């Protein structure tokens, strides 16, 4: 679909996904996979990683919204992702508030300022 733009995907608990789908980002049709994943109690880490890698490799995705709690499960893959698109944005969930010390981007930014670099 020319000129449509990039999609926003969401991975997280039921409330997180429902709220962003209410905002109008959802895509689901028989030709493509859904651009969201709801984390159930029985969702395995392997499934989360597979979906995350799938979203990372899709060309039509601009931003991946992911609960920080879910992001912790795929932290290695997240830290290894260095491209600007898609951008991964960690969001809080109801049970797990946002913790800036765990955010990949901010951790990298903190690593910039070492004693040697500031000389």
């Amino acid at each position, binding site marked *: 679909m020319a000129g449509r*733009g*990039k999609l926003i995907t969401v991975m997280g608990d039921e409330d997180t996904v429902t709220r962003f789908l*209410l905002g*109008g980002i959802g895509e689901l049709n028989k030709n493509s996979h*859904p651009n969201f994943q709801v984390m159930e109690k029985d969702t395995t880490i392997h499934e989360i990683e597979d979906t995350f890698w799938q979203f990372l490799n899709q060309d039509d995705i601009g931003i991946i919204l992911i609960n920080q709690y879910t992001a912790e499960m795929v932290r290695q893959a997240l830290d290894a992702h260095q491209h*600007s698109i898609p951008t991964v944005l960690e969001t809080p969930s*109801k049970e797990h508030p946002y913790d800036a010390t765990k955010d990949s981007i901010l951790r990298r*930014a903190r690593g910039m300022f070492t004693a040697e670099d500031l000389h």
Partner: protein
Amino acid sequence: MEDLVCPLAVLPTAGGDGEGGGSGCECVSMAALDLRADLDSLLLQLLGDLEELEGKRAVLNARVEEGWLSLAKARYAMGTKSVGPLQYASHMEPQVCLQASEAQEGLQKFKVVRSGVHAPEEVGPREAALRRRKGPTKTPEPQSSEAPRDPLNWFGILVPHSLRQAQASFRDGLQLAADIASLQNRIDWGRSQLRGLQEKLKQLEPGTA
């Protein structure tokens, strides 16, 4: 006597120097000064971006919390299981998309755009001539609207006001998310630029720690 290296000051050596080493030293010092100035401005910009990111994060978290509260009120009014994955449509089209633009090399910026904006439908006779009552005429049916369906309709026709409020909060949250994503990209880009400049500086001034 060997030429002394001037780390910062660009001072011409007294009486001039027969060899070209002195002017080379000056060039290196000038280049190092320029690099340091670039490093300083880049660092200041990065710190500004980090501060802006923190501010936008706080606003996004506040919007999300507002949305949760509204969603909880909607569930209270409609029933716990009435607002959840069971109500998701089997066919969804995104109402909101991202426009990605490259401001500088490797630096992506995002903007949220709403899709499904259509011109108002024309109602009325298409021909200037009078219509005659000769029976039903075949008129071309208007093309079915391609506008994506509002997700609010998944949850019923008359939804509570709190659900509409939740939708409004999350829509604002999406624009904020795009701004935060752009900021994160800028910070990452600035970080890589900073590393590059630091490497160049180390090559110019290998003696400095």
